[in-house]
């Protein structure tokens, strides 16, 4: 039987990484995600699996340690919260440019600036549209439960190595701080050096052998023609992700006349709103994007033929709503309801806004 525990999202993500056979975690404390580093330091995986846990001198150092570890074909990850993620952006862009796998966890807090420690989803644009400089994409996973916090670590590593691209887990203080029942995955041993050579020996710096050229990890390509070729190669990966990696969940959409669209913790709150609205006779469903990039454009486009209007609920001033509007392409009315600055929408006010902004009355 799998092990059942009551854990915080932050703890579950840390435990899942140990169990997924991660090689290294490099981080710097910041609320509301400090439990990740604290949990790892208490568990001491460096004494059991050999996973390195290191509190770096700064966020910039931490992301570049992930860059270094990933360059050797190792499973490395880091975590932070909004202001710290901003500091990591240069390193994230370099990882994307150098085609390095790895996971970056952002337990989002209210911003801009140092903002507040309370939950927010205001980093949607940063996570899905770039964040750092240059033409690149992160594959972005948005967990809505403590279970998914644990599940998305092994999934994230699989996707990161499949595409040789950094993966971001975009969550917030609600999921990070809350405790729920979680079924922990079995232990996967860390890759041996031989396994890494076999899997990633064609690109990773695993030590030159006489039968191949040196592997060089770099994002510097001064020749414009070569740089364009490189970016076009990256584009093919993003197209492949868009074709194969879209993940989403629907909730009571079969007979829905109206649709809520929300991700992460807000999607959990919206489920309750669906129940409240349906008790009042309003046929509403919920679509929850699980991957924010690639975005579930097609299922939202298809639902636009079924429903009379959509309300996008976010803990920000309106970010994902732009992607929903692109998917709907004017077919039905799409409105936004958001709380920000660390305020969490409650189930009743979502229903109230659905009625006032979409249904009318």
């Amino acid at each position, binding site marked *: 039987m799998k092990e059942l525990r009551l854990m915080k999202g932050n703890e579950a993500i840390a435990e899942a990484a140990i169990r997924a056979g991660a090689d290294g975690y490099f981080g710097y404390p910041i609320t509301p995600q400090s439990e990740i580093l604290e949990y790892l330091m208490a568990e001491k995986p460096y004494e059991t699996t050999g996973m390195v846990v290191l509190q770096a001198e700064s966020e910039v150092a931490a992301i570049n340690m992930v860059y270094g570890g990933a360059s050797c074909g190792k499973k490395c990850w880091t975590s932070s919260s909004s202001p710290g993620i901003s500091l990591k952006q240069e390193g994230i862009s370099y990882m994307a440019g150098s085609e390095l796998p790895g996971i970056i966890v952002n337990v989002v807090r209210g911003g801009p600036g140092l903002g507040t420690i309370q939950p927010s989803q205001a980093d949607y644009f940063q996570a899905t549209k770039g964040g750092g400089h240059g033409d690149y994409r992160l594959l972005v996973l948005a967990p809505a439960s403590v279970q998914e916090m644990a599940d998305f670590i092994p999934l994230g590593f699989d996707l990161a190595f499949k595409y040789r691209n950094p993966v971001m887990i975009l969550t917030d203080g609600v999921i990070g*701080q*809350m405790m729920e029942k979680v079924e922990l995955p079995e232990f996967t041993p860390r890759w041996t050096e031989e396994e890494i050579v076999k899997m990633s020996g064609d690109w990773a710096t695993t030590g030159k052998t006489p039968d191949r050229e040196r592997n060089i990890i770099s994002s510097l390509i001064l020749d414009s023609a070569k740089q364009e070729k490189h970016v076009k190669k990256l584009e093919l990966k993003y197209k492949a992700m868009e074709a194969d990696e879209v993940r989403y969940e629907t909730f009571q959409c079969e007979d829905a006349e109206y649709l809520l669209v929300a991700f992460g913790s807000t999607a959990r*709150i*919206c489920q*309750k709103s669906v129940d409240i609205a349906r008790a009042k006779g309003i046929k509403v469903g919920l679509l929850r994007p699980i991957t924010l990039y690639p975005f579930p454009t097609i299922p939202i486009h298809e639902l636009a033929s079924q429903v009379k209007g959509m309300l996008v609920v976010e803990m920000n001033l309106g970010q994902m709503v732009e992607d929903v509007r692109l998917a709907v392409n004017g077919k039905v009315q799409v409105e936004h309801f958001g709380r920000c600055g660390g305020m969490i929408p*409650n189930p009743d006010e979502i229903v109230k806004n659905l009625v006032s902004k979409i249904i009318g009355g």
Partner: protein
Amino acid sequence: MTEEIIIAGFGGQGVLSMGKILAYSGIMQNKEVSWMPSYGPEMRGGTANVTVIVSDERISSPVLNKYDTAIILNQQSMDKFECSVKAGGYLIYDGNGITRHPDRKDINIYRIDAADEASKMGMTKVFNMLVLGGYLKLKPIVSGEFIHKGLEKSLPKRHHGMIPENEKAVEIGKDLIYPIHVL
């Protein structure tokens, strides 16, 4: 069955750990649970609260604005959460330090003087378990056997010697609670 609870009081009263023990006991009894603490600036100001949901079904929102039961352990929390109890729901409060008593007529109100009793008995550490006992008297959502398992899971091994004292407090708490206004 779905029971949506807010437990609110001062930091140090054991608000978060009471919620955790209740949630873990729920898991042991094969129920779905969620535990959502306040971790923001209000916590740093000395107040603490936690939303606990115990249910037979998958839990949707871990964040709520109305509760089946509010367990209120200081005046600030009374001011904030008395109005958040669903009509027909339960408000349980410790009278210690309460200057404005609850006056809603559409809910059940019970009082438990656990703080006084805990200090009389020299058991201030298990104050929160007295309150939990009072709550479980009204809403036996988890049974004693599972509270025991929940305590085992919630407390670090080095504190397992304190489990009998905690269980005793739960039993005493059941006798301490009394009605103020019942529908």
